[in-house]
């Protein structure tokens, strides 16, 4: 055979072996074993391929591209390297179709036991950061009592009626629904359980969400009707628990965790909000609510720690203005904190989705 073979002809094995040295920095596994290598083509000394990730293209993924290109150039016989990036986000195996919203791949509830810890701010910035790196995202405000998503997103155009479903307003690429759109400004929702249950079902099933990679659901505080209805209506992908570092808040957050555990809903992790305060004048750091409480709670309970968001006047003003800070492109540390949070959440979703939910077969 060897007679006509050029001595420096490339073979696929050598290329894959080289790519096997490249790790996905979030999933800590090599990109070949993860099945990310698509359309591998060898043409003389020219190698082209697409790396298809299972989460949005966060800056960490650009590193993977650079590394892959570099390693491939070192393979003998390679003259040209062309690597492109793509992503495709899946649902958890076993939960693809058997529920109310089959076009929504992942549903992430943002919860906390306690009120006022910044659930909505975290939910909005999480949704924005996921969208910024390419994902198709929806944001459902399940906090009927204090709907704050319209203000935080600066989105005041109400939903409109479609032929069969409610068409949610779309702002900055994010589809939104909130009780805030259905109530006059100074009115309040004073409802008992069955009404809340119906609202959760309608917000999920009667809204035209279309194809979404992630639906972020902002929950009210507590462990009541809305949380229970949500966990009963759809197989939630998982819950992000928000807490301040304060013992009191963590104590109440542990109630929310206990609820999700009882309902077999995966805990994607705990995010620490109001982690510390950096004085804009002197730069001094003050740990107002203590520090590292959420990280410790994660270590104790075996949950992933999703990151820390500082207490900052900037977050507050941008929230009130409806200009979420995560929109910012620059290297502002706070905007980066939200990107890291989104990356940690997407990583946990991806790890979680790798374990199939066993289907229960029901025979009549």
């Amino acid at each position, binding site marked *: 055979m060897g007679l006509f073979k050029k001595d420096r002809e490339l073979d696929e094995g050598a290329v894959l072996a080289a790519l096997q040295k490249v790790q996905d920095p979030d999933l800590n596994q090599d990109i070949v074993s993860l099945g990310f290598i698509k359309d591998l083509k060898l043409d003389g000394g020219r190698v082209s391929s697409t790396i298809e990730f299972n989460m949005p293209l966060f800056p960490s993924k650009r590193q993977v591209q650079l590394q892959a290109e570099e390693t491939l150039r070192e393979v003998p016989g390679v003259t040209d390297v062309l690597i492109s990036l793509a992503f495709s986000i899946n649902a958890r195996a076993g939960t693809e179709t*058997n529920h109310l919203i089959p076009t929504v791949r992942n549903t992430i509830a943002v919860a906390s036991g306690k009120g006022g810890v910044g659930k909505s701010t975290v939910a909005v910035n999480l949704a924005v950061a996921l969208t910024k790196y390419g994902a198709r995202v929806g944001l459902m405000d399940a906090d009927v009592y204090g709907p704050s998503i319209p203000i935080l997103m600066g989105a005041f155009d109400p939903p409109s009626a479609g032929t069969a479903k409610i068409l949610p307003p779309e702002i900055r690429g994010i589809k939104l629904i909130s009780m805030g759109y259905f109530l006059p400004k100074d009115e309040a929702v004073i409802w008992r359980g069955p009404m809340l249950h119906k609202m959760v079902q309608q917000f999920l099933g009667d809204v035209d969400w279309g194809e979404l990679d992630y639906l972020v659901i902002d929950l009210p505080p507590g462990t009541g009707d809305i949380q229970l209805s949500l*966990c*009963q*209506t*759809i*197989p*939630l992908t998982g819950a992000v628990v928000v807490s301040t570092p304060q013992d009191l808040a963590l104590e109440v957050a542990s109630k929310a965790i206990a609820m999700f555990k*009882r*309902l*077999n*809903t995966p805990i994607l992790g705990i995010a620490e909000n109001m982690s510390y305060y950096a004085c804009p004048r002197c730069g001094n750091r003050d740990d107002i609510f203590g520090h590292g409480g959420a990280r410790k709670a994660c270590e104790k309970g075996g949950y992933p720690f999703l990151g820390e968001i500082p207490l900052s006047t900037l977050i507050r003003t941008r929230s009130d203005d409806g200009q979420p800070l995560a929109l910012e492109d620059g290297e502002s540390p706070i905007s980066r904190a939200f990107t890291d949070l989104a990356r940690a959440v997407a990583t946990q979703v991806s790890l979680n989705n790798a374990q199939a*939910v*066993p289907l*229960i*077969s*029901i*025979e*009549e």
Partner: protein
Amino acid sequence: MALAPKSIKLSAPKGIEIQWNDGHQASYPHALLRTQCPCAACRDHPPEVKTEPDPLPIYGKGPIKATGAEQIGHYAIQFHWNDGHSSGIYPFAYLREICPCDECQSKRLG
């Protein structure tokens, strides 16, 4: 892995047969599951359940039987009964707790 059923047969010879993901298998008589319904109404007023065929079948509906079931989220099963009731949501852990098999019975007593 969290405890969950793998398969549920509603019309097995000995009632409702549940095969668990830890290998356990048991049959629940229909009447047992119906009387142990965890919904608020049934806890308050335990339901009257017919287990024998009706002597005047024109008037009755026959013995209690599950007519359908569906999975609720990641944690429970909802049964539909031929007496029209369906509001009971049975968490997996609860179903296992009331398992009538000899093994589970003696564990509970011991």
